[in-house]
């Protein structure tokens, strides 16, 4: 029965990884921007979420408001800063690196250096029995939410007009623009959605990963590992990559505890050596 628990641990953490990586992958896929600010979106999302929960006691409100605020932040970043360096990868990456430090200091200034772990919503604060063990319903809910987000993203990409425009943009932004697609709006939108997903991960992951100075770096690193394993620019890659990394990390820590620092990086290195583009990458 303990193995069921271990597996659930791995899957729920994997779903969280998916949420954190999906936005990064989406943004890179369309705009070729390596967004080093991605972890900051997580951290800001988690902090705003914690403030909302502290003030109103509503986890649901935090889950809606925090991602929207961060999405706006992402849109502003894209519209007024990154746009100026369109397709210039190095200046763009450096710019996002600069934002990473600015956000790190801002969050330290506003929320202080104390680590926090977000409280869980009341409806999912209990646990259920699995055999002779107890399992928190929150982690099960996390798996459900991850699947729902994956489904929505898939539907958005494959079944909506905007999604079709997005796919066209990923394949060839120039031709898509020539065909009358408003690529400029698409860029802002995708950047905002990417930020929104990371902030969603911040609120949802807050009760497990927590928020403290430095979490932005750690989350960014995790997100990069997942998209490298799954393949940059692929949502399916982010989902499979997230689950794979979550499970391997979990079982790695149990079977090879002395390698705990590397259990996340070993799969990445192995996959990279066989498939340099990641599992589902085309680039």
């Amino acid at each position, binding site marked *: 029965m303990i193995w069921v628990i271990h597996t659930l641990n791995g899957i729920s953490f994997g779903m969280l990884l998916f949420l954190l990586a999906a936005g990064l992958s989406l943004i890179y896929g369309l705009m070729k921007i390596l967004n080093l600010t991605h972890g900051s979106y997580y951290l800001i999302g988690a902090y705003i979420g914690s403030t909302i929960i502290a003030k109103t006691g509503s986890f649901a409100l935090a889950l809606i408001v925090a991602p929207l605020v961060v999405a706006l932040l992402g849109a502003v970043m894209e519209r007024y800063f990154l746009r100026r360096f369109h397709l210039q990868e190095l200046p763009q990456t450096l710019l996002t690196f600069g934002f990473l430090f600015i956000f790190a200091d801002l969050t*330290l200034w506003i929320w202080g250096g104390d680590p926090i772990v977000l409280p869980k919503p009341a409806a999912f604060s209990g646990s259920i029995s699995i055999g002779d063990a107890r399992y928190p319903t929150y982690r099960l809910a996390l798996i459900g939410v991850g699947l729902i987000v994956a489904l929505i993203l898939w539907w958005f990409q494959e079944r909506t007009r905007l999604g079709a425009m997005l796919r066209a943009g990923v394949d060839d932004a120039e031709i898509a623009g020539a065909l009358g697609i408003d690529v400029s709006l698409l860029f802002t939108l995708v950047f905002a959605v990417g930020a929104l997903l990371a902030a969603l991960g911040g609120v949802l992951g807050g009760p497990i990963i927590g928020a*403290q100075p430095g979490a932005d770096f750690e*989350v960014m690193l995790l997100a990069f590992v997942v998209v490298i394993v799954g393949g940059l620019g692929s949502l399916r890659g982010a989902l499979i990559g997230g689950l794979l990394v979550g499970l391997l990390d979990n079982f790695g820590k149990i079977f090879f505890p002395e390698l*705990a620092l590397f259990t996340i990086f070993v799969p990445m290195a192995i996959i990279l050596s066989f498939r340099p583009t990641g599992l589902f990458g085309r680039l």
Partner: protein
Amino acid sequence: MRASWIAAGLLPLMLPTTSSFAQQGPIKIGLILPLSGTFAPNGEDTLTGTRIYFDSIGNQVGGRKIELIVEDEQGRPDVGLTKARKLVENDKVQILAGFVSTAVALAVNDYAREKKIPMVLSGDAGANELTMPGPLYNPFIVRTSQNGRTPAAAAAAFAYKNGWRKVATMTSDYAGGFDTIGGFAQAFCKLGGTIVQEQYPPINTNDYGPYVTNIQSGVDGVVTFLPGSAGLKFVKQFDELGMKAKYPLMDIFGQIVYEPFLPQLGDAALGIYSTLHYAPTIQTPENQAFVAEYMKRAKRIPSDNGADGWAGAHAIADAAKAVDGKVEDTEKFLAAFRPDKFASPKGNISFDKYGQLIQSMYVRKVEKTKEGYANVVVESFDNVDQFWPMTEAELESYKYRYSELKGSMTNCAKVLEKK
């Protein structure tokens, strides 16, 4: 006449190079603390405690002003060493103090020894070897916080007394963690207990689910040393995965039940035991005054780091007073720490010949009081020196350093092997 007048005119220009002038300047203390990253709360508390004491004496001692220069080491040894160099070489501080991370203290240790700069460990840094005879021993060190092994030894004593015989341990994977849990293993084995499982999550572990699920079933208790956000994340999972209902938890150093964390932990912290050299609930006038002042400034209950910072400032001021403010005379200044005895928020403090303090150890338990969740003292051990409950000779007779025990603490024969 004219010549002497010219000379007098030149005099002020020449003075800065003479030592008599330097002694009229302020006593500069460089505080190296983590103000960002995992250990930031510990750093902030040390700083507040330090300020409270110095403010209470008007930031002046032995006729000289006290000037604090604070540097953030970001929890990184390389940054800590750079900041130490900057403080000593650019800011010309006469004393280094603070140090929360053991790794940072170890990184600065050689440098301070080489530069003959007094290094007052008023932060959490608990590496035992820094104040024990051996290769790392630094005669310029005075410690006013604690060493790694005494709260661990107190945890072993309390656990054994309460019938724990088989325990699982969970320790953050770094030098300070090995020191601490090694000290626990030694004391616990000596009493007759056994560690049946050791786990070492890396310091930046995001998800403690796997480690908690992996705890061996049927143990009498779980013993942890998980500083900073690690403890916070761990205990949430420990509670949620149903382990807290099954096993009592002993938190060496009170890292999980760190006072600033208690409000957000809520009921998840109830009943957790911890050992430490301080508790905000200690009923003495010194502590009650300290807690009141601390609450006024920081808007929260002080932690041990606050009390340690206060004690560090007190010890520095006492020693500076004993040498009439001449802290540049390093030898006399350091010697003045040794006979120092004073009452502090954490109880009576004195120092041994190695510069390590002798103080009380408290076993606390989280209870819901009328002021909210608090660590209530359930037992105390007084006048605990750094070798307690052994003698220096007995402790010396073990052939290992604690960090070498990592991975073999489940084998008491090995743990108790003598030279």
